[in-house]
């Protein structure tokens, strides 16, 4: 039996190679596992397994399928795999532990959710669970953190964190993350009239530890009480910086999204990357990518840690289409490069300072075409970094929106409502060209394009890179494809039947490498992009966890 993926049996040369590529601070990681949301705290989404490679990928076959029994908003999770057990969350907070070799259910848990979850905008979906301290943690649709026994799925503790009635349905759509004994997470989006917060509890007991207010108290930043409805939700998972005992996490846009006249100021700490001291919740540093955001340009996406010229740096994509490279010690700017090819919301961004140059804002009563549109140059689905090639792989799209800014009364926004501050909002083609989508392979520091593959419609799933030299990516029709990581040549594809809006991962169980594809289109993104990509209308939803192996 081949054991290419087993570090204990690797030849010395291969082992040395893998060690060279090992994520920073990841010495204890088992190559066979996918233990965290991005697999490692470096946010790479890279599996060191290579049984599935350019020579063998053509032999991939379905090994098993697990269905969560509910398809509302599809499958959006990145599964967690430890010691051959798959932990994942389906629609409406259904959590499963599944045998990674057979697909057999080991346990199933679903909380009794408050009926208010049927009344809010961000319904049904969750992006995953977190496993640690012998627990499986979830953030719920009704505002709780819950710890389950990893072995049985029984509840260890449950802590109510938010009251959805009081915060326009602020709920946990992403898994709370671990930073040592701290479990932390933020709530949904910046599109509601709410004041964003990051909540932390003791991971062992569920007792509250600290709360970080993502809205600054500085009146120069938020005039009057505008910060009370200023957005700033940290709605995606953060990553733990073990070396500095810090949390790296991004925040959403400011609200109302496009009508900034009522909140003059820089609106800290919206649209920012934050480094927070994990034990205390104190702010170590921040980098605001979009001061006084009026374009719905969240900074909530992943932070990818790399070593550059002897220093730890963070690669961070903002919805506005620019990638910031920041020093991890203090957040200072190393470089800023554009992933977007059609941006017009700024003339440029200073690559040395990150300062916005030549802002182009929506205007009340006047229609403007602004690019990228509110879903960004990419949605929240993550990219992947391969230490084998030194490239960062990400989906991207070129779409604009037609906008007329308009005042909106926060008090008239209902629990399912949006606080966008517009009277006209439509996704449209960029000037002189059709809306387009692609998968890019780029140098993470300079942005230099190595290869690109066009897509019919934007990819909404997260990319996976592997030591087998394969890049896996799914599309909105449900087709998952394998590409050569050096050239972009397509090597394999399989139609799972419903779109990919999740995290594709890889793991090993009983000596065999698996590719695990959560299939099932969901979220609100397909709705808004339909005017630019009409064929996305009516694509079927679904929910199935599809595992592939070589035999």
């Amino acid at each position: 039996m081949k054991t290419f993926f087993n570090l204990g049996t690797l030849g010395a040369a291969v082992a040395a190679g893998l060690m060279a590529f090992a994520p920073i601070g990841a010495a204890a990681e088992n190559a066979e596992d996918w233990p965290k949301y991005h697999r490692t705290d470096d946010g790479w989404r890279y599996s060191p397994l290579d049984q599935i490679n350019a020579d063998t990928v053509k032999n991939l076959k379905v090994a098993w399928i697990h269905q969560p029994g509910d398809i509302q908003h599809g499958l959006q999770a990145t599964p967690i795999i430890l010691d051959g057990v798959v932990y994942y969350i389906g629609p409406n907070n259904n959590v499963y532990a599944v045998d990674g070799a057979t697909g057999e259910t080991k346990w199933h848990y679903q909380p009794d959710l408050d009926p208010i979850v049927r009344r809010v905008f961000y319904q049904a979906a969750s992006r995953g669970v977190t496993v640690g301290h012998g627990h499986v943690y979830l953030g719920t649709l009704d505002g709780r953190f819950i710890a389950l026994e990893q072995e049985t799925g029984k509840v260890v503790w449950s802590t109510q964190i938010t009251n959805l009635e009081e915060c326009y349905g602020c709920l946990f759509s992403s898994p709370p993350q671990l930073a040592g004994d701290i479990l932390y997470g933020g709530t949904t989006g910046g599109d509601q009239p709410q004041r964003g917060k990051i909540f932390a509890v003791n991971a062992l007991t569920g007792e509250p530890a600290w709360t970080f207010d993502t809205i600054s108290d500085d009146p120069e930043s938020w005039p009057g009480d505008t910060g009370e409805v200023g957005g700033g939700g940290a709605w995606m998972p953060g990553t733990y910086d073990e070396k500095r005992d810090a949390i790296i996490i991004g925040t959403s846009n400011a609200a109302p999204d496009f009508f900034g006249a009522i909140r003059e100021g820089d609106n800290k700490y919206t649209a920012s990357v934050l480094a927070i001291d994990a034990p205390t919740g104190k702010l170590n540093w921040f980098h605001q990518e979009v001061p006084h955001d009026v374009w719905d340009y969240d900074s909530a996406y992943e932070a990818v840690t790399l070593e550059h010229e002897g220093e730890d740096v963070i690669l961070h994509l903002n919805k506005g289409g620019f990638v910031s490279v920041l020093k991890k010690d203090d957040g200072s700017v190393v470089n800023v490069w554009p992933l977007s090819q059609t941006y017009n919301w700024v003339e440029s961004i200073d690559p040395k300072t990150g300062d916005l140059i030549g802002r182009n804002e929506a205007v009340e009563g006047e229609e403007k075409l602004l690019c990228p549109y509110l879903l960004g140059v990419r949605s929240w689905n993550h990219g992947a970094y391969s230490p084998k090639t030194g490239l960062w792989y990400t989906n991207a799209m070129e779409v604009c929106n037609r906008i007329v800014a308009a005042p909106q009364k926060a008090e008239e926004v209902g629990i399912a409502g949006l606080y966008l501050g517009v009277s006209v909002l439509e996704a449209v083609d960029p000037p002189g060209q059709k809306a387009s989508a692609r998968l890019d392979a780029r140098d993470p520091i300079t942005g230099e394009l190595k290869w690109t593959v066009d897509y019919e419609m934007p990819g909404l799933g997260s990319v996976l890179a592997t030591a087998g030299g394969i890049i896996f990516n799914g599309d909105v029709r449900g087709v998952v494809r394998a590409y050569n990581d050096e050239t972009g040549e397509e090597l394999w594809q399989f139609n799972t039947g419903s779109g990919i809006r999740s995290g594709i991962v890889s793991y090993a169980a009983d000596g065999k490498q698996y590719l695990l594809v959560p299939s099932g289109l969901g979220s609100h993104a397909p709705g808004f992009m339909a005017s630019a990509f009409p064929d996305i209308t009516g694509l079927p939803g679904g929910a199935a966890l599809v595992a592939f192996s070589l035999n």
Partner: protein
Amino acid sequence: MKPMFKRTLAVTAAGLLTASVTLSAAMTGAATSPETLFADDTAIANGSLRFAQNCNYCHGSNGIGGKHKKLQCRDFKPDYVFDTITNGLEGGAYFMPPWDHFSENQRWELVAFILSLGKLDSC
């Protein structure tokens, strides 16, 4: 003017929006449908603004369609649209929350706008 009465709507829609809904005025708080709004430009404009601020995300700009089938060029019964806005609708992968925090008049303005989408030149 249509009277307030208990009614059964058997609604067949292709794809994901298939539902059979039994509703009553007592359940929904549905008011008599103010048909005069349906030809009122101000009401339609108010509905258009509310649609742009709340409904675009799923139904597409001007109801062009998105996650759900398009609202343009459809021949809706006004009460069905009103009841769906009021109560929401679940089916398959997607569901629509209730929008009953809008006043009845605001909901009827939305109905007026959605009905106007059935009379576009492109239909």
